[in-house]
C-alpha cells in the first residue's frame, strides 16, 4: 500500500514552505497555484525568493502582501491586460521596500529548471548573444563547446527549496497527471527539494495506471497532495474551468492602489478561512460562466499483455 500523502492546505504549506525559502509556483497561464499562494500569504511567510517564468497576478498578490524579498523570472506582467503594479512599485519606487530581481529569458529559466532536475552544472542555449541581459545578470555566461563550433550561453541550475504544482488530478501517493499546457511544472518539480501538489480531483491509483503517458510527476517526488477544487482561480484548469478574465481586469485596478490591494487581501485572503470559502464567496453564477462545454479526447488502447 503506497503512502497516503493527502494533507490540508494549511498543514502542507506550514510544513513545506519556510521563511527564507526559494519557492517556485509554476504554470504557464494554465494551472497557476493561486490557492497555495494565498495560503502562503495567510501564514505570513517572509523573505521568500519567488521563482517563476511569468510572475503574474499571484506573485503580484504575494509580493504586495510582503512575503518576498527577491524575484527570479523571465517575463513579468498581467497577461493580456498590462502591468503588475505592486511589483512595479517595489522595483521603480522601492515602495514599501526594494525587490531584488534576477532576470533571464524563458528558455533560460526553463533550462535552469531542467539543469536542476537532471543534476547538471549548467544548461547551454542559443540565446542572449549581443544583448544587455548578460551585462545585468552575471549568471548568464558565454561558454565554448568542448566539441568546437560557435560559443553558446550557459545558465546555472535552479533548485528551489519547494515547488508548488497545481494539477487536474493525482492519487493519494502523489502520482500527478496534467493535460493541456504543461509549461515547465515537470522540470520545476524534479528540480525542487520538496514538492507540494494541489489537485482539482483525487483519483484512485488505477486511474493513473490506466493512462501512464499523462503522468507528469511520480509520487516519489511528491511530499504532499492537497485536494483543492478550483484552486487555480482566476487562472484556469483545462477541461474544468476557464480563465476568469474579469478578475485579471479587476486586478489591474486593485493593484494600482496600495490601499485597495491591502483591502482585497484582507477580504479575500486573510478574511477567508480557506480556498473553499473563497470559492463559495465568488458565487455559483460566476462558476457557471467559467465552465466549458466538454471536448473529450478519444481513448487509446495500451493493450493487456498478461
Amino acid at each position: 500500500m503506497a503512502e497516503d500523502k493527502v494533507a490540508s492546505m494549511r498543514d502542507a504549506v506550514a510544513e513545506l514552505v519556510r521563511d527564507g525559502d526559494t519557492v517556485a509556483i509554476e504554470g504557464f497561464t494554465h494551472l497557476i497555484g493561486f490557492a497555495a499562494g494565498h495560503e502562503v500569504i495567510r501564514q505570513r511567510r517572509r523573505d521568500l525568493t519567488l521563482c517563476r517564468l511569468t510572475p503574474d497576478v499571484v506573485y503580484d498578490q504575494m509580493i504586495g502582501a510582503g512575503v518576498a524579498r527577491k524575484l527570479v523570472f523571465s517575463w513579468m506582467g498581467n497577461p493580456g491586460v498590462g502591468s503588475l503594479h505592486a511589483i512595479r512599485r517595489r522595483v521603480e519606487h522601492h515602495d514599501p521596500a526594494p525587490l531584488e530581481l534576477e532576470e533571464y529569458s524563458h528558455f533560460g529559466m526553463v533550462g535552469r529548471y531542467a539543469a536542476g532536475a537532471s543534476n547538471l552544472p549548467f544548461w547551454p542555449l542559443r540565446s542572449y548573444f549581443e544583448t544587455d541581459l548578460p551585462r545585468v545578470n552575471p549568471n548568464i555566461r558565454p561558454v565554448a563547446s568542448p566539441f568546437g563550433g560557435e560559443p553558446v550561453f550557459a545558465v546555472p541550475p535552479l533548485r528551489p527549496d519547494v515547488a508548488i504544482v497545481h494539477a487536474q488530478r493525482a492519487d493519494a501517493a502523489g502520482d500527478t497527471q496534467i493535460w493541456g499546457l504543461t509549461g515547465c511544472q515537470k522540470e520545476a518539480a524534479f528540480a525542487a527539494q520538496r514538492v507540494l501538489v494541489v489537485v482539482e480531483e483525487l483519483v484512485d491509483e488505477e486511474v493513473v495506471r490506466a493512462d501512464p503517458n499523462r503522468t507528469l510527476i511520480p509520487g516519489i517526488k511528491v511530499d504532499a497532495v492537497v485536494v483543492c477544487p478550483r484552486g487555480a482561480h482566476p487562472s484556469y484548469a483545462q477541461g474544468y474551468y476557464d480563465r476568469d478574465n474579469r478578475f485579471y481586469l479587476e486586478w489591474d485596478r486593485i493593484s494600482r492602489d496600495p490601499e485597495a490591494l491591502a483591502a482585497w487581501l484582507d477580504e479575500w485572503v486573510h478574511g477567508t478561512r480557506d480556498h473553499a470559502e473563497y470559492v463559495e464567496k465568488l458565487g455559483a453564477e460566476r462558476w457557471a460562466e467559467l465552465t466549458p462545454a466538454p471536448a473529450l479526447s478519444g481513448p487509446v488502447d495500451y493493450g493487456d499483455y498478461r
Partner: protein
Amino acid sequence: MLVVAGARALAGRRVCFVGIGLPNIAVALAQRTVAPEIELVYESGVYGARPARLPLSIGDPCLVTGATAAMSMVELFGYYLQGGLVDVGFLGAAQLDRFGNINTTVIGDYGQPKVRLPGSGGACEIAINAGEVFVLMRQSARSFVERIDFRTSPGNLGGAALRAAQGWQGRGPSVVVTDLGRYGFDPDTGEMVLAAIHPGVRVEDVRAATGWDLRVADDLQVTPDPTAEELRLIREELDPDGVYVRG
C-alpha cells in the same frame, strides 16, 4: 490597420511563433485570410493551434483544444525553435531602433528604471533562432528611438554585416508594421526603410513619429484599405468586444 497589415505580411509563411499582445490577433486574422495553412506556435507549449475564439493570452485554453501538439516548454524552445522549425517570429516592442533591435525590459536605467517593462519572455531566443522576425507595435517618437535603453532582443545589431557575421540560425528582422506604416530592411545596411504608409497617413507624420532620420523607399506604397471581409472578421468574429482593436 496595424492588425490588418500585420496579418497580410504573413502571406506565404508556414510556421509562425506568436508573441503576446497585438501579434495574437494579427495571426488569427491571417489564419482566416491570407495564410489558411499557417501553423501557429505559442511559447506556452502549443504547435498547430486552431483557436475557436480569440485567445485572451498566449496560454489560453482554446489554443490547446484542437491543436496538433501540446508539449513542455523545454521541447518547444529546444526542438521547435532552436531546432529550426519556426519560419517567422512575431514580436512586439516598447522601443525599437533603426536596425530593428528591440527593448522590452526597462525605460531608463536598468538598476533604477523609470518604467519597468515585462522583460524578454521568449523574445530574445526567438529573435536569434526564428528564420525571420516581424515586429508589430504602435509607433511614436518615444517608441521609435535613436538609441534603445536596453537591448532585450537583437535585430541587425549595428548593421546587416554585423548580424550576418554572428552566424545565427535566424536572418533577423524583415518586416515592421506599425499603426502608421510598414517597413522593410535594406539588405546592405540592415537599416529600416519605410515601404508603405497606411491610408490617410502622410510621410511627415511618420517622420515626426520617428526618432532618427528616416529612410523612405523610392517606390513608397499606400497600404490598400482593409477589405470588408477583414473588417467583418475583426469586428464580428475575432474581437467583438474591442479588446485588441478600437474603432
